[in-house]
């Protein structure tokens, strides 16, 4: 598993460059990862998503689906796609320091 230095810290990443250990994450790392994903600045709306995803992952042991973010997280799907354009579930999970989502929904 390769190493990656980000925001001054060296962390382990998987082959898709997702953090292997969620505890390696910090807000500075999130900001750097966001830039790499094409998001120049993380707004409060972004942070709401990231915070919910990390909290939900801690409680349930898996990365929340888009549906769960809508129903349990109060994050409408339209907003999610606007905040994390392209592949929002993957992008948000990466920035939140979580593993690549493995769901089909």
């Amino acid at each position, binding site marked *: 598993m390769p190493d990656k230095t980000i925001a001054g810290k060296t962390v382990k990443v998987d082959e898709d460059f997702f953090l292997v250990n969620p505890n390696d994450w910090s807000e500075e790392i999130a900001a750097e990862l966001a830039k790499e994903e094409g998001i120049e600045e993380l707004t409060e709306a972004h942070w709401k998503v990231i915070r919910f995803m990390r909290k939900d992952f801690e409680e349930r042991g898996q990365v929340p689906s888009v*549906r769960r973010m809508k129903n349990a997280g109060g994050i409408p799907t339209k907003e999610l*796609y606007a905040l994390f354009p392209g592949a929002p*579930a993957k992008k948000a999970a990466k920035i939140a320091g979580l593993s690549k989502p493995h769901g089909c*929904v």
Partner: protein
Amino acid sequence: MAEEKIKKVSIIIAQGSLEGVYPGLIMGNGARMEGMEANLFFTFFGLNALLKKMVNKLRVSTVGNPALNMAMPMLKMPITFPFPTLLGAVPGVSNFATWMMKREMEKLDIPPVDEFLEMISDAGGNIYACKLAMDMFKLSKDDLVDEVNNVLTVGEFYEKAAGGPIIFI
């Protein structure tokens, strides 16, 4: 040599059963989750899924479905256990099979059809109804759920589908 990613996919849903509609919805939503453009074109019995009155009343086909053995583990029976054909025609059996299927899908966080169409639409997926099928079944756009973008002819569908694969379900 890296393969080129698919940029757009168009999916034709022509069946109106639960098992006929869901693969199309999952493929369409999955495409949007990968950042691909997605067109869903509902035709013939697939229009059942777009009807306001029927969107959450789709059922599993229990008659003439030779693969129902796959659902047997849901009843804690072996997957090779055959489902008797005649049993499928007994009143209530299709409803029971549908209820069971929906329960299993909910456990996997798969939304019911109306919520799924809303999610796909909110994710930027395009939902179309086939004009010919609408005419044949004597339907108007008012009969359809709000998420339907447009009613298209086959030619208009092909225009929208240009540049990407077309999947027929």
